[in-house]
């Protein structure tokens, strides 16, 4: 339990250094985001931040994309985006494949499609990269230890 105490103290120190109070995640260079912070998967990052290139890295954490966004804001500061008119009842989902729509739906279930307890609690501890299914991840041969 001593290790746990050290861990807890370390966490408290991290909070003390970084400031416990919330700041808006997307706040950067004076540009504040109106995105609501939600973290259902527990990785500490806002799930609502887009990931345009689908590389599992939020766009705000990628320097080259932030640069592009800022340049874009300067270039189009005197223009406005307006919703496209005349779409009527057109369903944008009809342009997507079944797997793409399912991917969107699956994203909504990231908190409810797994659980942390039961008789194999802790067996999912690890990087979550999907390659650690052998002995060291705590599970092998379909049995966790």
């Amino acid at each position, binding site marked *: *339990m001593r290790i*746990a105490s050290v*861990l*807890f103290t370390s*966490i408290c120190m*991290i909070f003390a250094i*970084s400031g*416990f109070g*919330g*700041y*808006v*995640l997307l706040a*950067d260079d004076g540009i504040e985001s109106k995105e*609501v*912070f*939600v*973290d*259902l998967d*527990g990785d*500490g990052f806002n799930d609502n931040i887009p990931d345009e290139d689908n590389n*599992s*890295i939020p766009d705000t954490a*990628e320097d080259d994309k932030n640069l592009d966004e800022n340049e874009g804001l300067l270039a189009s500061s005197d223009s406005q985006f307006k919703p496209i008119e005349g779409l009527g009842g057109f369903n944008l*989902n009809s342009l997507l494949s*079944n*797997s793409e*729509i*399912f991917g969107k*739906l*699956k994203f*909504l*279930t990231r*908190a*409810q*499609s797994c*659980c*942390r*307890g*039961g*008789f194999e*609690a*802790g067996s999912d*501890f*690890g*990087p979550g*990269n*999907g*390659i*650690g*299914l052998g*002995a*060291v*991840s705590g*599970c*092998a*041969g*379909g*049995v*966790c*230890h």
Partner: protein
Amino acid sequence: MRSLLIGILILFFLPVSASADFGLEIKFSESFTNNIISDSSELSDSYSSTNAVLKYYPFPQVELNLKSEYSYYSELVALGNLMSGAELTAIPTSAESPVVVYFNASYENRSYREAFSVYNTDTYEGMASVSYILTPTAQVRGGFTYENALFKNSEEADKEVYGVIGGLNLTFLGSNSLDIETGYTFADFISIEEEGILAYPQVLEEIDGDLKSFYISPRFSRALGRKLGMNITYTFLSFVDYEEPIVYSYATGFLSPWGSVWDGNSVTLNLKSYHIPKMIITGGFGYWNKRMLRTLEFPDRIIPREDDYSRYYLGLSWPMPARSGPYLEPSIQLDIINNTSTNRLYDYSTFSVIVGLTLRM
């Protein structure tokens, strides 16, 4: 229950709509560990694993997987095994709805070489859950879980587990997230009556075991800057009306059907970093205090076991999506495990390294 799961799987194999599409995911991994059995014998081994999943989407709300995995161990060759299975996931609600309904059913068969064939298993699992968005920053969820593990050549290790879960996720003070999950689990299994073990002559009388477990697990997560995220999770897990059942033990704790059944406390810390461009770095530490079930070591020794288990890991992944063409993700992972136990057989430490490649098409 098993028939129901199989029926649902077959039902969704049949229809093929015009917009149905397929996906394929293949994972290769190569690993080395200095303690393959996870006990004081400290046998080192290297092993490789290949995993393939064929995904089929007959409807936008349904995913059907056919999966297979083969693991090869270079020293302990008999531990090599082949897994094959199928999985169905259905999400019948729309993306705009505040209510999300989730169903999952799966079947998995795992077969070992002759020397370890006692561990051959058929596993059936199911889950149904529903979540509801209360406010933009608060969501509640609840659900049921089911698992039936059947050991083909060792029926006394079979177990059937039912669970109910509930949870709440909310955001407070800007970008701090709290997720509280709780659950209650029931397990049916076969235990051995203690009086018969100690009697002379010994009579091993198998009785229906009944194990109940309650857990509560708060998790706090937040970002520490633009490129670093963390969570800290505490889990309290306790057997309910615990009558200290005795179960059959197996020579290798590594594969024991009871190795994963415990009560106690755990605390874990996970970090995720995007500081290296285009790469994902993960690291973590976890500590578990576990009380395991009592096991029978022949001829008549009844062994209680309590472990202090700690684990550290570091992972590095490089996702490489392509606008058209395959998705590639090479990964490397380092693990260190330390375990101290009241049973000296399980005093051990382990160091492991895994390299892997994920390919999606």
